[in-house]
């Protein structure tokens, strides 16, 4: 029997594999064999589906039913109900947090419904390890078109007209970059791909490399033709073993099929592609540092100009594009620049992939047209804030970016609008934070990262980030000084204007943007020794409001230092001498009866809180 009647597209991205895809696949195979369905139902391992929080996930075609949180134990029931008897198995379906009805079809699930897939066009639809499946979805058609029917000038014009901007962070026009490199005469040029994704919480590029490696290769071949390069490297960090494996496999397959190497598709064009493994230094995502790293030298940036388009890798003209940028090239070549412009805004065309993480219900990878409001991403796709808590800020652009507060959530997501808020679109990391987040602590977290990752070549970045970090640490520990806020602002501007590369030029952004929107938190840390979110241990006193306490014993049991006393029907009390300010009781209390007061608080808490609340109102 040759006919296959159903495909089970089981996600084998890093997230789902970690949650058990391999075991689930073995169980499915065993169970299908038991029921005699092995030949008519095929299991296909796909790249990242994007809905990582609920993995392992699987889409069943042709019904398009979506299953999540698969377990080995549930497999027999699933196979019997759905694949044998044709009754989609409700227990494993998606459910909206507040409503309990199961949603069977992928296209009806809010997380997927609002997305428009261009970069991730093949996500969950193809087996990334089979070049034939990529070709079946119009793969390499754009290479065929670019190599046989277009001149380099035509390719560059199409990409330029599309308005595609580099998705790595800076948002430079891709077509313009190609044009610069194409005009520099040289017998040797390089086409490079930046897969050194390093922002904490970002995983867009990894997913593309894992789920659709050929789309990156195809974009590189077209770029190479446009600028006249015959050699290329994909720079990818060694911490992405699955991406490296799939890229290697894809390069081997494409070389065997004559899509890489000498005389591609018998058109006379040569392009040789290799992978270079990075050791995971954040600064190597900066283009000049990345090129030094490929040359085998220590990954450190150098001043520009000369720009890489003139003097890049081994001092030859080079173009470096981000993974997501390259994955968009082939549809642009096939469908034209007007098609690409049909989504997005005038200056920010097309779609952008975001890695949505943090305190949202639906964590995962989302691709949306540029220009949609942040609120849609966080509330409609992300399903709102976890546990019904209040939104506080969303951090965009990783360590180079900034925080956007509640009142700006309706701004459209475009390069210009986001920059105006003090954040950046960046590579697309989007970390949502709820009311329990300390903004000084958030700035400190990112500074810890950049201070650690600073390569040390230029003084403003090497010393400046360390001083910023020390000041932030002091503030969170209760040692903040009156003059700190002004010094932070001054120093930040100095670091931005005098640093050599993008790392230092953007490192103070988290400080500046939290100061811009959450200055009052810095002030209460410094003046009142009060971390209102209850995160900084030295700046809190926890107190139970006895009028609200239901004496349920939950906090009493949860307290790790046995600092809470009380019994049934007797309101509980915190013994301050024993309390370690860990906030466990605050997070445990279901009745909102625990209050966070300044460090070493004395006096009447009720009176104090009422006064502060009134003061805050007046200020508004």
């Amino acid at each position, binding site marked *: 029997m040759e006919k296959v009647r159903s495909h089970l597209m089981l996600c084998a991205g890093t997230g789902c594999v970690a949650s058990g895809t391999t075991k689930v696949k073995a169980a499915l195979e065993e169970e299908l064999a038991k029921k005699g369905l092995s030949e008519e139902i095929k299991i296909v391992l796909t790249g990242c589906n994007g809905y990582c929080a609920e993995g392992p996930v699987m889409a069943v075609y*042709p019904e398009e039913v979506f299953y999540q949180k698969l377990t080995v134990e549930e497999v027999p029931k699933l196979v019997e109900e759905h694949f044998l008897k*044709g009754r989609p198995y409700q227990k494993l379906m998606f459910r909206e947090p507040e409503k309990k009805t199961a949603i069977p079809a992928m296209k009806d699930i809010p997380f997927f419904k609002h997305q428009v897939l261009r970069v991730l066009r093949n996500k969950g639809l193809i087996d990334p390890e089979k070049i034939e499946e990529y070709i*079946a979805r119009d793969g390499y058609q754009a290479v065929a078109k670019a190599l046989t029917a277009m001149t380099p000038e035509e390719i560059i014009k199409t990409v330029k007209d599309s308005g595609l901007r580099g998705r790595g962070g800076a948002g430079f026009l891709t077509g313009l970059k190609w044009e610069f490199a194409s005009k520099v005469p040289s017998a040797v040029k390089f086409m490079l791909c930046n897969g050194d994704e390093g922002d904490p919480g970002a995983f867009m590029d990894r997913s593309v490399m894992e789920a659709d490696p050929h789309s990156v290769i195809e974009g590189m071949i077209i770029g190479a033709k446009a600028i006249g390069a015959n050699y290329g490297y994909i720079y990818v960090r060694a911490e992405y073993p699955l991406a490296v494996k799939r890229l290697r496999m894809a390069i081997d397959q494409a070389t065997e099929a004559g899509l890489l190497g000498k005389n591609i598709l018998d058109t006379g064009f040569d392009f040789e592609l290799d992978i270079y493994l990075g050791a995971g230094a954040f600064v190597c995502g900066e283009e000049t540092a990345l090129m030094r790293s490929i040359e085998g030298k220590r990954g450190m940036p150098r001043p520009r100009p000369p720009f890489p388009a003139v003097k890049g890798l081994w001092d030859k003209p080079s173009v470096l594009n981000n993974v997501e940028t390259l994955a968009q090239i082939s549809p642009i070549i096939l469908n034209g620049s007007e098609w690409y412009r049909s989504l997005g805004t005038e200056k920010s065309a097309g779609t952008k992939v975001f890695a949505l993480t943090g305190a949202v219900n639906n964590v995962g990878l989302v691709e949306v047209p540029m220009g949609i409001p942040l609120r849609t991403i966080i509330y409609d796709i992300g399903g709102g804030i976890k546990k019904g808590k209040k939104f506080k800020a969303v951090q965009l652009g990783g360590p180079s970016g900034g925080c956007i507060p509640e009142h700006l959530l309706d701004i459209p997501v475009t390069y210009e609008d986001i920059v105006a808020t003090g954040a950046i679109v960046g590579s697309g990391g989007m970390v949502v934070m709820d009311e329990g987040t300390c903004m000084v602590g958030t700035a400190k977290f990112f500074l810890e990262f950049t201070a650690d990752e600073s390569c040390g070549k230029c003084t403003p970045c090497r010393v400046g980030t360390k001083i910023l970090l020390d000041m932030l640490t002091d503030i969170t520990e209760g040692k903040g000084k009156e003059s700190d806020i002004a010094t932070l602002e001054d120093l930040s501007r100095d670091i931005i204007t005098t640093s050599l590369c993008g790392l230092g030029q953007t490192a103070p952004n988290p400080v500046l943007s939290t100061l811009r929107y959450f200055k009052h938190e810095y002030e209460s840390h410094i003046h009142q020794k009060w971390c209102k979110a209850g995160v900084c241990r030295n700046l809190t006193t926890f107190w139970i409001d006895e009028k609200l306490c239901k004496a349920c014993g939950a906090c009493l049991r949860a307290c790790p230092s046995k600092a809470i006393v009380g019994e049934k029907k007797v309101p509980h009390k915190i013994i301050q001498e024993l309390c370690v300010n860990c906030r466990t009781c605050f997070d445990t209390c279901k009745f909102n009866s625990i209050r966070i007061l300044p460090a070493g608080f004395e006096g009447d808490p009720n009176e104090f809180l009422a006064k502060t609340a009134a003061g805050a109102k007046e200020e508004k």
Partner: protein
Amino acid sequence: MPRLTVADLQKIKEKYKADFTLREGGYTVKIIVHMGTCGIAAGARNIMTAVMEEIAKVNRNDIIVTTSGCAGLCAKEPLATVELANQPPVRYSDLTDEKIREIFREHVLGGKPVEKYALVTGCETTY
């Protein structure tokens, strides 16, 4: 894989068409075999096998087969429903290996419902 030419890309695309009709939609005929406990007991498994064999024989990419649960008419099992694009679905009852093959030839391939085996037209569809 041998070295490819531009024409080969198209050939590969054609070859994989059946797989992607399943995943992307775009089928023109959907055959539903009702496989509830009653259906399976009455021989629905053989009906399914027969359908799959017939499709393999004609090598058509645009026909898909799915299963569904008990249709509520347990006495008339095995049941199957044939849906042609833009036509009301037709449900057939009391099927046998020969009957379903005849339906396949006449209705699925020929476009004419086989009235003598038909139970009803215009029934509900599954998701």
